[in-house]
């Protein structure tokens, strides 16, 4: 049992930040993100400890669990669009002006991403651009063909750009 704990502990260390970030971007609340992420790891651990071999590939499994929990969260509560500046520690650029404008741009992008109607688009963007997952890995998580994933990433990016441009206009 202790070996399994140790192995899952490594898995936790590897994915805790990623899963939290994935959830946080979607729900835009630290507390809710913490609750959902904790639940996600608990569910994964409950499956893992029965038989680790049940889970062929841990990454897609954890993301699927997290995603489903976010869906459950949305089903229970109506989505409220809040723009939050919490937990966004930004690197400080050299001059203040560009720091302010850069911070503003990032916050806008974050807000638009959180507002995206299509949650699958949200997921694609988070996985591909923020978590640097390659298309084949995203395909495993979503059970979609790689071609479909590429198209969805492209469309998601266009959607965000359109929203940003609309906001600036």
């Amino acid at each position: 049992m202790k070996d399994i704990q140790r192995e899952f502990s490594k898995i936790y260390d590897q994915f805790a930040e990623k899963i939290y970030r994935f959830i946080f971007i979607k729900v835009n609340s630290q507390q809710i993100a913490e609750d959902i992420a904790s639940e996600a790891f608990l569910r994964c651990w409950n499956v893992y400890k029965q038989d680790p071999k049940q889970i062929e590939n841990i990454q897609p499994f954890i993301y699927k669990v997290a995603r489903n929990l976010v869906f459950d969260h949305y089903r229970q509560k109506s989505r409220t669009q809040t723009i939050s500046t919490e937990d966004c520690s930004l690197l400080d650029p050299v001059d203040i002006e560009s720091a302010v404008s850069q911070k503003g741009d990032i916050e806008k992008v974050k807000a638009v991403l959180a507002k995206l109607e299509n949650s699958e688009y949200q997921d694609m963007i988070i996985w591909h651009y923020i978590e640097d997952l390659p298309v084949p890995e995203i395909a495993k998580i979503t059970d979609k063909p790689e071609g479909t994933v590429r198209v969805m990433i492209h469309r998601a990016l266009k959607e965000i750009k359109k929203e940003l441009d609309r906001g600036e206009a």
Partner: protein
Amino acid sequence: MKESQLITNLKQLKQIKPREEWAVLTKQNLFRGEEVSRKNWMGDKVSMVLDVFPRFLFDYHHYKYVLATFVFGLLIASSTLIYAKNALPGDVFYTLKRAKEKAITLLTPDSQMPKMQLEFTNERLKELTVIAESKQNKKLSSAIKEFQASAKVAALNIKNIKSMSRLENKDIVQEAKKIESAREKIQALGVEIGDTEELNSALSELVDREIKDLEGKTLTEGQKELLNQIKVNFEEKEYSQALENILLLTQDEQ
């Protein structure tokens, strides 16, 4: 916003990180339910054995080497423990002796802890006696410190006793009497073992509690006389004698 700028901004969101507190607490909570409590020592021991043996011994190709290594390891461990048993403070194997005692306390039920800690205190006094008799003066100071530390722990455990069974009382009485006679012997050898006020205080509280308990009971004339004697022992700080008389009195009750 250009697409390249958008992608750059998206990548900046990688800086979103969870609170370290949350991450640590969540991990702890995950495995908390899996920890076997130290009271479930039997289950822990059995599962430790079952976890290790099937994997190694049933691997046909390696079992002979594993078995040989195991037997050899067992021999080394046994001889080390034999040396450790008589180790004194400052000796190479003393740490091992204390580690063994610590392991024993992990497996000891709460009700047995006061007796266990008093036994360890007695062991410290035995070590002190050997050191004093063989005039190993360099080891005296650390031996006295070890005894005082052990006496403190024993005192804490005695203070935590809420109610005692007759058997537990008997064990405590026996150990307390051994401590008293060992102390007298060491002091006769000219060694000053320092203040054991905490242990005395703990024993005093214990006796006081037992006296109050007995006062609330219906006693025969003979038992009332014994209770008076116990009160005299208490006044004169003869706590182990008081406990022994309490034992006699409660034996009469049955």
